[in-house]
């Protein structure tokens, strides 16, 4: 008789049920508690408010902006890694990982200094004559996207590096011999082959950005409100835990839908073969 591997999965299964599935079920259950028993009251109230809608859209927008900027920065870095020698590759990986090795709070406070009125960005612009007087990027969406971009860059570079290291140079050579120039090779060969890595990175970046409460709260300030802050307000200020649960479920579902959509794209027959 063939031995089943099931017994070996049991510890992991117990752990998942106890620390992941159960709390999630409790959270979802909580969200249905209304003033008169179980109902969709919380959802109706949350989605019925135009302000909340704007916050949801802003959160998605923040995620998309971060995706675009991390992609624009991450793709060249990943390509640089691909072309580099052994030592340079190690340096690139190390520099990429630094944001992940720093504490979230330290990182966020560093950005307060960088984005502030006396910060290097403002001073450089003034010194170059590009700005008339010092300015602060704190409490702006631009400043927040910049900070998010630094924090989430590894999430897009690492999948790209993983996928690029499996792409042999003969593909670009074949394109070269066929008569393709550098830009054509990038657009018709490298980017399509990198797409599975990009999709993986985009999912990670979006999930990370839309849930990063500390950075959003500190750098975004009171003027830029995102879904995690709404949840925090319900939990910490209004003590309306069922409402907080409902918002959390909405956030989870909207991120989840995006994730499913991207996974479906990555199952496209043109993308499966080389992923």
């Amino acid at each position, binding site marked *: 008789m063939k031995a089943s591997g099931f017994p070996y999965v049991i510890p992991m299964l117990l752990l998942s049920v106890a620390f992941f599935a159960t709390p999630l079920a409790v959270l979802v259950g909580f969200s249905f508690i209304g003033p008169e028993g179980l109902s969709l009251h919380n959802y109706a109230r949350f989605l019925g408010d135009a302000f909340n809608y704007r916050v949801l859209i802003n959160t998605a927008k923040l995620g998309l902006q971060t995706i675009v900027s991390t992609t624009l920065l991450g793709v060249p870095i990943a390509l640089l890694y691909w072309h580099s020698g052994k030592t340079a590759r190690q340096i690139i990986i190390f520099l990429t990982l630094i944001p992940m090795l720093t504490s979230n709070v330290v990182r966020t406070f560093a950005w307060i200094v960088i984005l502030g009125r006396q910060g290097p960005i403002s001073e450089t612009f003034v010194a170059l004559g590009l700005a008339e007087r010092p300015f602060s990027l704190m409490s702006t969406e631009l400043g927040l996207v910049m900070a998010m971009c630094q924090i989430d860059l590894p999430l897009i570079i690492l999948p790209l590096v993983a996928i690029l290291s499996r792409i042999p140079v003969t593909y670009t*050579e*074949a394109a*070269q*011999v*066929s*008569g*393709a120039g550098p830009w054509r090779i990038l657009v018709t060969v490298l980017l*399509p*082959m990198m797409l599975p890595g990009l999709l993986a990175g985009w999912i990670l970046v979006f999930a990370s950005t839309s849930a990063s409460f500390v950075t959003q709260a500190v750098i975004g300030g009171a003027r830029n409100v995102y879904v995690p802050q709404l949840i925090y307000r319900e939990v910490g200020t209004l003590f309306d835990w069922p409402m907080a649960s409902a918002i959390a479920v909405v956030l989870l579902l909207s991120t989840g839908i995006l994730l499913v959509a991207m996974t479906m794209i990555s199952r496209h027959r*043109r993308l499966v073969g080389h992923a």
Partner: protein
Amino acid sequence: MPQASNAAEGRELSVRGLTHSYGGQNAISDISFEIKAGEIVALLGPSGCGKSTVLRAIAGLIQPKSGLIQLGGQDLANVSARARGIGMVFQNYALFPHLTVAENIAYPLACQKVARTERRERVEEMLSLVQLKGFGNRLPRELSGGQQQRVAVARAIAGRPSLLLLDEPFGALDRALRFDLQVELLHLQKTLGITTLIVTHDQEEAQSLAGRLVLMNKGNVEQIDTPMAVYDRPKTLFVNTFIGQANVLHGKVDRLEAEATTIALTNGKALVLPRRLNFTTGSTVTITFRPEDVRLSATPSASALPARLTVSVPLGPTLVHDLLLEDGTNLRASEVRGPSTFIPEPGAQLFAEIDTMRCHAFPSEPEAFRE
């Protein structure tokens, strides 16, 4: 038979003094050869001999340290890989996995900014040329190895190159399929008249495809000749042992006469070659001969070497005997097998008569021996 009226104009290729090094060590040094327009030449040698480096230099994928590459009289030194108008089939085909067969074949045409309708016509023409009509919408991974190879060939010639380079094009295919595809490629090449250079380590492949062979070893050209000449008149010991099989005996030139040379073999026997060798008396030489130049008999004679039979293997129409000489040297003999051919028992004491007319003599270089 698909028409090939718009066949590419094959151009002659000339490589002179090509030298390249990786990290200080010369990978190839002073490689020179010519390919006439429309000719097929194979660059043959063991792996690591630098043949791929030569190919990559011709394709423009590496910048050689020195040397001249001319295609149709034009110096390629300052022509980038994309502008050389060369078609290339890569070792693992390098078909773009995210593009369909038709899109792969159309790739060089898109680079040449060929109009869409013309591109579609050319792709259809290529597909029927490599007998893959109806496969245009498949992805490369949905094809078999042999079909992928044909797509790679179609992509390489779609852009009407004046030179076709093939890097171990049959290496990834199984033996049975290889021969069919070789014949097909040969036919295609003849129809198109395209100048072709094949890099391979497989001597059978090289011999069945190429009109001339460029034999390479350790970054140098050893011999350039037709497959038959390379087999019959090898210029170096390497060529002799690399192409086909060869028995190797060592000895010293003992006596030189007008029409004969006596070699004192290391095993104490003597071998008389019926011609005067270009060596001085006393110089150490290596004598080689093919298995088919050895005749075995059960009775001793003056010039025969005594040998003990290890094993006899029938390989289709031939019978191959492995023997051991008295001093432990291996000897291989082969004969055409007939219905009455006597198959001796292993361990039998036999006498090997060597056809001294067809022996080759090379100066001894102890490090060059293969066995």
